[in-house]
């Protein structure tokens, strides 16, 4: 055995350093958008940014924690309704209320997890759906929330439009960039190491000291937080909350489509997927059902024949990683590993 020696661990590549620079520049440009662009541009970008944030959350669950949730709409609804609660009922400033909505969702996600984590695989999926339905039914049956017909978030609706639009834009940008960075940070940290190991071989991980339940639970709670905050951002623009739409399964369907198209289990995939989904939505959504049928077909085809999605296919072909989570060992010259 030898003592401590000259070792280092390389965690980035030239490509990823370039990507970082481009990323920082892009974010800087995005930050400045409300200062020079018109309202419709920033409104459009809000949609795209929230899609990225939501997709990152779903990818964290399905792609890393192995939790196929079809109940994330529950937390979006919680985001929407707690935005109303915090502003209209408790009188908080909407911009302050948005991040706080995540705490409501996180609090609800804990007992929910205690129940749904008892189910595995496909039954876990439907279990999360039931939980979202329960939340919807509770909200729809409380008269104070406006019942089934919902209500308008007055405090937000009464804000000056340009203030609301700008603030919402920056909040959306923060949600998207935050979601990407948080997921990236998680994957580079100890818990990310655990999540990746769980994905590869769950039974073996526990014997190495990994608290599997806690790792999955943290991903679940974080995703609940992220979905609620993003949901609140969305409703800063929509203004009107209503149980059937705020808790609609179509929110989760959107996340699934984006992640499947872009590539599950990568950080780049959901970003790419969100851009594609958004483009499709802008160009084809007027076709209504046909547009959704097309998305369904796309999801089936990709799942069956291109399981890695678009980014996965690119990675397999060229080995590109813009967000490297690798840990390459570098030692002194004499015993350099292969």
């Amino acid at each position, binding site marked *: 055995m*030898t003592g401590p020696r000259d070792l280092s661990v390389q965690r980035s590549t030239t490509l990823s350093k370039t990507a970082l620079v481009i990323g920082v520049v892009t974010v800087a440009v995005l930050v400045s958008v409300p200062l020079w662009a018109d309202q419709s541009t920033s409104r459009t970008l809000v949609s795209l940014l929230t899609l990225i944030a939501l997709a990152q959350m779903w990818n964290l669950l399905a792609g890393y924690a192995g939790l196929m949730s079809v109940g994330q709409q529950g937390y979006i609804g919680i985001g929407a309704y707690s935005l109303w609660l915090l502003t209209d009922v408790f009188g908080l400033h909407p911009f302050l209320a948005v991040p706080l909505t995540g705490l409501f969702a996180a609090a609800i996600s804990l007992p929910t997890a205690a129940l749904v984590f008892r189910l595995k695989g496909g039954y876990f999926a439907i279990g999360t759906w039931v939980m979202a339905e329960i939340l919807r039914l509770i909200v729809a049956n409380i008269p104070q929330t406006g019942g089934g017909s919902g209500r308008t978030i007055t405090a937000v609706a009464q804000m000056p439009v340009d203030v609301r639009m700008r603030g919402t834009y920056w909040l959306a940008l923060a949600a998207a960039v935050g979601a990407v960075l948080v997921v990236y940070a998680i994957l580079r940290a*100890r818990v990310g190491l655990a999540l990746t190991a769980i994905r*590869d071989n769950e039974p073996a*991980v*526990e*014997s*190495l*000291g990994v608290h599997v339940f806690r790792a999955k639970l943290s991903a679940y709670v974080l995703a609940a937080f992220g979905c609620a905050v993003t949901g609140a951002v969305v409703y800063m623009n929509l203004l009107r909350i209503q149980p059937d739409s705020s808790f609609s399964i179509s929110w989760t369907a959107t996340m699934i489509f984006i992640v499947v198209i872009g590539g599950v289990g990568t950080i780049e995939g959901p970003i790419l997927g969100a851009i594609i989904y958004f483009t499709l939505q802008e160009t084809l959504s007027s076709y209504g059902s046909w547009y959704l049928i097309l998305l369904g077909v796309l999801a089936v085809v990709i799942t069956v024949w291109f399981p890695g999605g678009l980014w996965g296919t690119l990675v397999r072909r060229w080995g590109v990683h813009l967000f490297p989570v690798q840990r390459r060992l570098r030692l002194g010259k004499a015993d350099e*590993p292969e």
Partner: protein
Amino acid sequence: MTTILEIEGLRKSFGGVLVTDDLSVSLQKGEALGVVGPNGAGKTTMLNLIGGAVRPDAGRVLFEGQDITHLARHERCRRGLGRTYQVPRPFVGMTAFENVLVGATHGRGKSERASYQTAVDALERADLLHHANTVAGSLTLLDRKRLELARALATEPRVLLLDEIAGGLTEAEVNELIETIRALRSEGMSIIWIEHIVHALLAVVDRLMAIDFGKLLIEGDPHEVICSPEVEYCYMGTERV
């Protein structure tokens, strides 16, 4: 010598079949204990009961004097119980170094940076350092077995549980492995080693036990145990059908 690990009256049945029947064993600090017995004798179940993958129907597991019978697997690992699996379970998408790093960080609750040296040492002791950056999915069987060992070592165990780590290896490879395990033992590691390859066991262990039908048949000096009528009886045959 002090007792580091003790199991008392462990009993476990699967679907009506008793696989561990009132089994009691104790392991001294720094001791290497070998376990032999026919396939299906309950050897792996014994390790599973100690490691926490399986909970007993009755009995206790004591580690360093504390009752760990109801602790979860990861808790036992963090207390100092490391184990390898008979069929290697590598994290196929990660490199050997990253595999070992999982054990080094989570097994000891250390930060990642502080774990790098531990991981490198574990790889080196298991003779796998030259494959540190190789993706585990493309390792050969011998290297996968070494990876099992390296991952367990990275958790810095005080008791190491080895499950047929030499099975499926060539004679020369077995000899290499014997040297590795001998070195661990001489550093003071306590070891329980299940193995079919008897000469490998004899080269390392201080004490040998034989089990069959989940029961302890005999334990004691390795050579005496191997030559005992009990072991001959269970290997050489009696009516079992």
